[in-house]
């Protein structure tokens, strides 16, 4: 075995330029793939985090059908008390009760139709980033006060500032006419035009009074430490639903179905590009190994006629390829890891990202995700294809005729 290893290694270096060029192809491919994959995964996790932490949370408890129809009568009964029970059971502070409906908001000069949400001022900041994005005035404090916070674009459209009053007109849960006058205490700026234009938040108690909700609401939002806890938490929540109550627990996938699919769509197109690159590298290796076998035809002929088995020669070629591939893997992982680690701390900004950031609520820099998967995943696949590519030259050796072989140069 030791002899085979030494032979293989020396064979590689008989043609150093050729070996380096092939390793170079592998390293280039590996570095590129490592960087691109970690960038992709970093972007996805950021997209998910941002989308969920803005407003949706990881899980929500709702009445069945509310997600699609959003009718005010599809309620979660005793919502504040249920939320408190969930808080105790799960041991989490990041659970908050909400009500929501469509209403007409009027200032002195203007009116706009918007989504109004009744929120729990004490706990909303644990499940949504909006309370932290107040840039004028303050967030809501008292659950029964007639106060309101609105988005910056809505504030501009309504021509109002903190201190002004807004009239809210809508329909109550019992079908009656609902009206309220709320004082603007704060304006938030999330950076996402849709949120800043269409959403206003009022305290839950005031919401329940104004819209004849009694003690009901529409959603209980739960935010977890990480996405990985979702499945377990979902089961726990389902067990907490009281007997006879028809409520459903929705995870972020149900709440934002586009998100998971968007990621899959992007992955799909990226996979296509990656496979092309891997195939091209495999061709490179095929070329190299084939050449290296063909030019040793005479030598192999001699060695076989002296008693070595073709199978052993085949193994030798595969061993050479393995070494070649491992060299490419190690150098690729080192270099790729270096580049990725460096950008992971500095962040990457691509052209066109600012506009995307405004549209999709992303930050302007992406941070590549450094993990064993991103660092090793691609290089291992490249190594695998390298070995597959070398099978052809290795297997050809079986048909080598010693006498004919020795006749070549």
């Amino acid at each position, binding site marked *: 075995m030791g002899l085979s290893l030494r032979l293989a290694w020396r064979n590689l270096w008989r043609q150093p330029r050729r070996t380096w060029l092939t390793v170079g192809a592998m390293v280039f*491919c590996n570095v590129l793939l490592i960087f691109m994959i970690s960038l992709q995964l970093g972007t996805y996790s950021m997209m998910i985090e941002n989308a969920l932490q803005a407003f949706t949370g990881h899980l929500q408890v709702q009445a069945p059908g509310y997600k699609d129809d959003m*009718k005010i009568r599809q309620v979660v009964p005793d919502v504040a008390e249920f939320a408190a029970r969930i808080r105790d059971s799960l041991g989490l502070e990041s659970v908050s009760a909400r009500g929501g409906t469509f209403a007409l908001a009027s200032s002195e000069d203007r*009116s706009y139709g918007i989504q109004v949400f009744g929120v729990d001022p004490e706990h909303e900041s644990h499940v949504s980033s909006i309370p932290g994005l107040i840039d004028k005035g303050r967030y809501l404090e008292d659950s029964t006060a007639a106060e309101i916070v609105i988005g910056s674009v809505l504030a501009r*459209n309504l021509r109002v500032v903190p201190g002004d009053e807004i009239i809210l007109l809508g329909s109550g849960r019992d079908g009656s006419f609902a009206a309220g006058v709320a004082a603007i205490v704060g304006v938030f700026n999330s950076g996402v035009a849709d949120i800043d234009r269409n959403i206003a938040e009022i305290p839950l108690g005031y919401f329940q009074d104004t819209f004849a909700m009694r003690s009901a609401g529409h959603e209980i939002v739960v935010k977890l430490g990480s996405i990985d806890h979702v499945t377990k938490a979902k089961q726990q929540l389902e067990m907490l639903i009281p007997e006879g109550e028809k409520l459903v627990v929705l995870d972020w996938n149900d709440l934002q179905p*586009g998100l998971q699919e968007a990621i899959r769509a992007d992955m799909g197109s990226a996979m296509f590009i990656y496979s092309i690159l891997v195939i*091209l590298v495999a061709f490179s290796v095929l070329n190299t190994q084939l050449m290296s076998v063909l030019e040793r035809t005479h030598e192999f002929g001699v060695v076989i006629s002296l008693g070595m088995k073709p199978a052993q020669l085949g193994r030798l070629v595969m061993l050479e390829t393995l070494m070649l591939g491992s060299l490419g893997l190690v150098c690729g992982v080192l270099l790729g890891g270096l580049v990725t680690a460096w950008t992971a701390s500095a962040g990457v900004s691509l052209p066109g990202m600012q506009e995307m950031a405004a*549209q999709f609520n992303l930050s302007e820099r992406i941070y590549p995700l450094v993990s064993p998967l991103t660092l090793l995943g691609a290089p291992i696949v490249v190594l695998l294809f390298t070995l597959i590519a070398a099978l052809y030259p290795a297997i050809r050796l079986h048909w080598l005729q010693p006498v004919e072989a020795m006749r070549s140069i």
Partner: protein
Amino acid sequence: MMRTMRIVAMLAWRNLWRNHRRTIIMLSAITIGAWAMIFMTALSRGMVSDMIRDGIRSLPGHIQVHNPAYRDDPSIGNLIPDTDRDIAARFGKAGISNWTSRVRVPAVVTSERDSRGVTFIGIDPQRESTMSFVADDIVEGRFLESVDDTGLVMGARLADILDTELGKRVVVMSQDPDNDIADRGYRIVGIFKAKLETQETAMLFAGKATVQKMLGIEGRVNEIAVMGDDYRDVEPLFEKVNAAFDDDVEVLRWMDIELYLSSTMKFMDSFVLVFVVIIFLALAFGLVNTLVMAIFERMREIGMLMALGMRPSAILAEVMMESFFLLVIGLTLGNLLAFATLWPLQDGIDLSFISQGLAYFGYASVLYPETAAKDVVLANVTVLILGFFASLSPAWRASRYEPVEAINKE
């Protein structure tokens, strides 16, 4: 000179085929690389073009005209100073016919069961039908017939949300320029479906004159849209429209309004180049390797040729020719393969299994590849030019061989 070139070319061609296995492998690699470049960019460009065209068709238009204060404060008070008649006269004089004017206001639509905030748009149906998406996608009932039409056209999804349907009445409520509530009952005469759900829920259409009467703004509008021939080049149209109006309006190109769309378009162009370069680099290693090996094997022969009088420049030319042949044949095959695979996909690739994900980015769920001549040219030219430079090094070294040393190499 020509004779030398002919001989060099012949030599190069024959040398390529001396080791046909290696040549075929290299050719396959180049073919696959070229195929990938063209195929992938056709798919991406198709997606982006579709998205942009749909975005523009769903009302922005290539050029838009508004009151200068409208963008910051899109309320009904900020109307375009000219009346309908003046506007028609201006366009007539400028020779522009593909234009339309609209009244666009935020409003609340109330059915028997529910209410929603929408963007209420009074349109001129005859002009709009050539420009925007709505007329094509009516699934129930009819489109509007004239500016005086008193009917309403609503998106299918909005009708669901409001629990209403074709033939029923709804009330649309908005503000007039005096800040009073203006409302009016409408009967739903048509239901439309759009590629993106938000278009169905956010927009409501009625006859322009009816809306103008409801808001008390007879003869006035707050938005004018003009369509040209090519969404990529709107400058000439911009100039014409700008010249047709006075300084009391704001004339904008779609790129200034829809920043996300225009940045995606720019991103697409740079993506193509980056992609081509990456694929080429992956190929380059193999290409250089092939040339280096080819030369190395023939060192004695090259030495002999030089000893017999062949000039170093001819050697250089010969090696470059080999590379050139490889590239040209590989590119040709790759291009042909790409067209062969794109042709059957012309009717679109059905991606409805990830339709919601695509909608997230603003893409429809059927992908129509778009082969742009400039992409194909860019890919081929880039490969040829970069290939030229990549082959220079081995070719140069070959031409620097000392004949005596080379002949004596083993």
